[in-house]
């Protein structure tokens, strides 16, 4: 029985199992020893991810620069420093398990509330694809429409590296998020797929990470919206 369940799989390479972040989960190293980091608005996260392979709370967000095929511009995460609070995720439109629509829903919802609350011009929503081969300009535009993204708001960008290898290098080396490409034997209409982490990064106007959401596809969207609002209006 092919019970296609979205999100039933989070997929990890074997070597992640021993990555730092996952070993730091012993209870007891929480709250008491940690305090608000410099240059951020939000307090320390419930889960200390500071030993993770990815940049985390209070740290500088990596600078990446890729073309946005929908606007024809090159978009750099650095261009928002001093300008906008950023919410960023990594995805691909052929995502077979529903995780990517769930990630984009959170960006889209934050975008919606930003417009309602009048801080849309202080916000940036970035979706970086790691599947440039299939995620062409047309595909990304159609996907944005399907997911209800407002492309006219001027605060949404897709980042599209030229090659998968560029995306992989950026994701693994700069963001510390392992990624793999493999055959999608279990899906009829899919040749290959990308096991990937469902991460969201909330970055303040100073370019510091306010919050990392490792379970970005399932975290309560209202939590993201609230955190975003707290940071953008600080």
């Amino acid at each position, binding site marked *: 029985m092919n*019970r*296609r*369940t*979205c*999100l*039933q*799989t*989070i*997929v*990890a*390479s*074997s070597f*992640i*199992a*021993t990555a730092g*972040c*996952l*070993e730091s*989960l012993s209870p007891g190293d929480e709250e008491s020893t940690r305090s608000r980091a410099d240059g951020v608005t939000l307090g320390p996260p*419930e*889960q200390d991810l500071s030993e993770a392979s990815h940049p985390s709370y209070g740290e500088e967000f990596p600078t990446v620069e890729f073309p946005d095929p929908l606007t024809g511009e090159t978009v750099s995460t650095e261009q928002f420093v001093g300008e906008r609070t950023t919410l960023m995720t990594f995805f691909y439109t052929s995502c077979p*398990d*529903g*995780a990517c*629509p*769930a990630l984009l*829903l*959170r960006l*889209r*919802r934050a975008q*919606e509330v930003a417009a*309602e609350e009048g801080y849309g011009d202080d916000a940036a929503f970035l979706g970086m694809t790691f599947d440039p081969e299939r995620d062409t300009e047309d595909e990304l535009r*159609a996907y944005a*429409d*399907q997911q*209800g993204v407002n492309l006219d708001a001027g605060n949404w960008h897709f980042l599209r590296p030229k090659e998968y290898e560029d995306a992989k290098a950026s994701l693994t080396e700069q963001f510390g998020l392992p990624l*793999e490409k*493999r055959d999608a034997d279990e899906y009829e*209409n899919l040749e290959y797929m990308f*096991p990937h982490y469902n991460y969201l990064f909330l970055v303040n106007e100073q370019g510091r990470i306010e919050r990392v*959401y*490792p*379970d970005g*596809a*399932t*975290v*309560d*969207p*209202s939590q993201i*919206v609230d955190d975003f609002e707290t940071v953008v209006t600080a």
Partner: protein
Amino acid sequence: MRRRDVLAGLASVGVVGGGGVLAVRGVPSFETGSDDPEATDGAETTAPDPIAIETVEAPGSEAGEVRIPAPERVTFVDFFGTWCPPCIEQMPALAEANDRIGSDVLFLSVTNEAVGSSVTEDELVDWWDEHDGDWLLGLDPTAELTSRYLAGGYPSAVAIDTDGRVQWSDSGVKTADELVAGIERALEAEAGT
């Protein structure tokens, strides 16, 4: 808590025959039992404000507005998109669940697509007709409802009691039995109060 569960799930991924990748059931489902309302999204512990959802003229559906969660009866919502192939697979089980138990509850399907731009209302209604939708069809243009209740990806379903508590939710293609069982949990929670 969930965050920890996820990472703990990942942390347990150690054994991979011959390297490569491994799928892990690491993401906790949002299937929160009626016996543990605290474990739901927090907002559900007190009745959340109902959200007004516009319904459209379509087979089994008429133009109007409903409030979700409904104050006077159990609410069942299926979240779908016309772009989502598994959502098509989900339709027959929804039809069966609606036949079996739909009259006891507010039963509807909702899409948060940009109806009017990415898909026209006519295309939506055609999709609905083609896949034998025969119950209330609603729109969530700001994704407010979807954000509150989506249990992961699409399709996704939720059963809410009249106190606004989520009694069951799950994502993925579900059988009619699973849908009915979920709805019954919300109905039983009603009977219990």
